[in-house]
Each structure stands twice: as C-alpha cells, then as structure tokens.
C-alpha cells in the first residue's frame, strides 16, 4: 500500500494522460524532460537538502539525480518513479558524503550554544535552526530513515524499500534518530540556561 506522499508524487505523471510527459521525454523531448524535473524537483531537492544539510550540496545532488533520471528513462518503471527518485537521491547523497564528510559532530552542541547570542536570537528562528542542526548529528542511515519517514511522509515499509533494509531496522533507526535529536536539543537548551 502506498502512502499519500508517494501517491501524490506519482500523481503528477498522470495529469496529462498516461505517462505522456515521460514518453515524450523518453523520445528525446527536452521540454518534456524539463516538465518532468519540475514535477519532481520538490521531492528531489527537498530531500537532498535535508540529507546533505546545505543548499549547495543539495543542488549538486539534485543535478546528478536528474541526469541519472535522463540516462535511465528508457528502462524506468513509471509506477515507481517517486520511489526510484528517493532511492537515487539517498544514494547520491551517500556518495557525496563519502567524498566530503560532514563536519558537525554531536559534540558540537556546547560550542553552538556558546557561539549564540541570547539577546539577538529570536526564539522561533533559533529553534528552527537548532532542529535542522540536530539532523546533522544523526548517522547517515538514521537521517535518511527519519527524513523519508517523518518529513517526506513515507511509510516504514516504503522507507525500508528505498533504503534496502528491513521494516524492523527502519523502525529502530527512526526511533533512535528521534531520541538523538531530542538529546541534542536538550543539551543545547541546558547550555543556554
């Protein structure tokens, strides 16, 4: 069974007849491919942004994902396009991270607290930034599981399919990721007080 997130992502393909855009893109129509990118750019860039942690890397990842999409148009199963895009996005992020590892470990929380200015930081904006930072403290698999499940709205089974792991593993990763994030936020808040 598909969640609303996957159904909504795939609905775009059906809007103009059955796979008409995809078929045109397969035939080499660059305009159709541009339309295909527009339909899925929120999925790809949004996910990549949360996984990579910064916009520049996310754009690089998205570019690579769409180039892979173009190269694989002929053999793609249109029914699973959204799942395919999620999988490739996660994989390209993983490759990018191997080339350039993230540099914000969990232990940076006290430093972040010390660097912040209590007078200037508006509570809400700071909290948003803190939540996004807490994502970076997670391991790669935990972050992928949490982003796909909690932010993109995929079911545990769908996340397991995208990540190539079991449902039990995804549940465990999601649970640990939530607890780690909460620990990070709590440490940061305690430091500020």
């Amino acid at each position, binding site marked *: 069974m598909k969640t609303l997130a996957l159904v909504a992502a795939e609905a775009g393909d059906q809007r103009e007849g059955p796979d008409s855009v995809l078929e045109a893109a397969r035939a080499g129509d660059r305009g159709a491919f541009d339309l295909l990118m527009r339909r899925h750019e929120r999925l790809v860039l949004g996910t990549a942004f949360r996984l990579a942690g910064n916009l520049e890397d996310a754009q690089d990842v998205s570019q690579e994902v769409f180039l892979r999409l173009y190269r694989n148009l002929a053999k793609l199963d249109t029914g699973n396009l959204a799942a395919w895009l999620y999988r490739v996005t996660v994989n390209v992020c993983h490759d990018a991270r191997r080339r350039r590892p993230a540099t914000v470990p969990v232990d940076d929380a006290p430093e972040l607290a010390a660097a912040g200015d209590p007078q200037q930081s508006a509570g809400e904006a700071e909290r948003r930034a803190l939540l996004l930072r807490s994502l970076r403290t997670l391991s790669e698999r935990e972050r992928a599981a949490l982003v796909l499940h909690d932010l993109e709205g995929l079911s545990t089974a769908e996340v397991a399919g995208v990540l190539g792991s079991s449902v039990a593993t995804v549940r465990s990763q*999601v*649970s640990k990721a939530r607890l780690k994030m*909460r620990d990070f936020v709590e440490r940061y808040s305690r430091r500020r007080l």
Partner: protein
Amino acid sequence: MTCAMWEERVALFAGGDLGTAEATAVERHLSQCVACRALAAELRLELDGLRQVHAEPLAAEHYAVVRGRVLAELAKPQRGRAAWPLAWAAALAVAAAAVWVVVMMKLPAIPAPELPRVVSIAPMVERPVPREPGSKRSLKRRERTGWQAKAPAPLAGGKVGQTLSSVNLQVNPVVSRPAAEDSPVRMVQLATADPNVVIYWLFEEKGEER
C-alpha cells in the same frame, strides 16, 4: 529520569508509529510516568517543528538553478560521453605496452645452452656382451624365428669438434666404418658445456651397409 526500556517505544509512539496493542501499553505507562510523558511531549513538539520547517518551500530560483544545470549538461555535445570507451581502451593499450617494455628491460638475458660437441669417434673395444634377459624358451624362439634387436641409427657425417646440431644423420661410411673388421660396435664421445659431463654414444652398424 526516563525509563530506558520505554524510550524507544515512546519515541515511536510520539510519531504515531506503534500498533494498537503497543500504543495502549505505552499510554498506560505514560499515565504513570511523568518523565516519559514529558519525553513524549518534547518529541512531538520537535517532530512538528521539523515538519513545519521542511514543509516550507525553497525559493523558486534554487530549483531553477538545478534545472538549468541539468539542461545545460544535456545540451553539451555527446562526443565526450560516447568517446570514453575508446579513450579508456587507448589508455589501457599504452599502459600495457609500457609494462611490457619495463618487464623486458628488467629481465636478465638467458644464454642459450651450449650444444654438445663431438670430440672423438672411435671403435669400441668389444667386450663380452652379457646374456640378454629372457628364458631359455624365448631364446630358442628367437633362434628359430631369426628375430634380432634393431641397432640404433649410426652417427654419420660427424667430425671431431663439430656441434651436435650440425651432425648429419645420414650414413657416412668414412665415420661409421670400424677400425677393426671384427668390431661392429662404435663409440662417439660428445662433450658438453660442463667438462665433468661427457656423453658416450654406442651403436652398432648393420652388416649390409659396410
């Protein structure tokens, strides 16, 4: 303090990821545990905050940048992409040739073994030949049928000092003729590269060819 054994389940409960039975068990625990109740509330708050942040769309130009880069990449001539297998093949061929040259330069030259030379050709002093193995019955059969063991082909055309590779194996009466009429067995002495190794070749000429 929270209950460590409940933490993971509370984390899943906060996201609505537990089945009915498990959720009921967690709710029962939360009703009795203040710390876990606080944990669940914090987790819900953070999840909601994160979802709100994620739901905010990025600026349109960020998407446009990606699309522009992709289309520009696709508009590039395909020559580079199509030619890469050839480039790889050429690079591999050059690398293989370089390796072969290096290996050939490093290998020491192996001298060809020196062929034995004929140092003397002389009739052999005939000695009493030991009786051939075999039963009396088989000896009698040989006498009856006239069977004889074949002699080896005689060395012919050989000269002292000549290498074996140039020895002519055709019959040469001058060489193969025995010094004594009654001595059909001849001996050829061959010298090898090792002075301690000398090869003696004994053979018997056939009577008809003398």
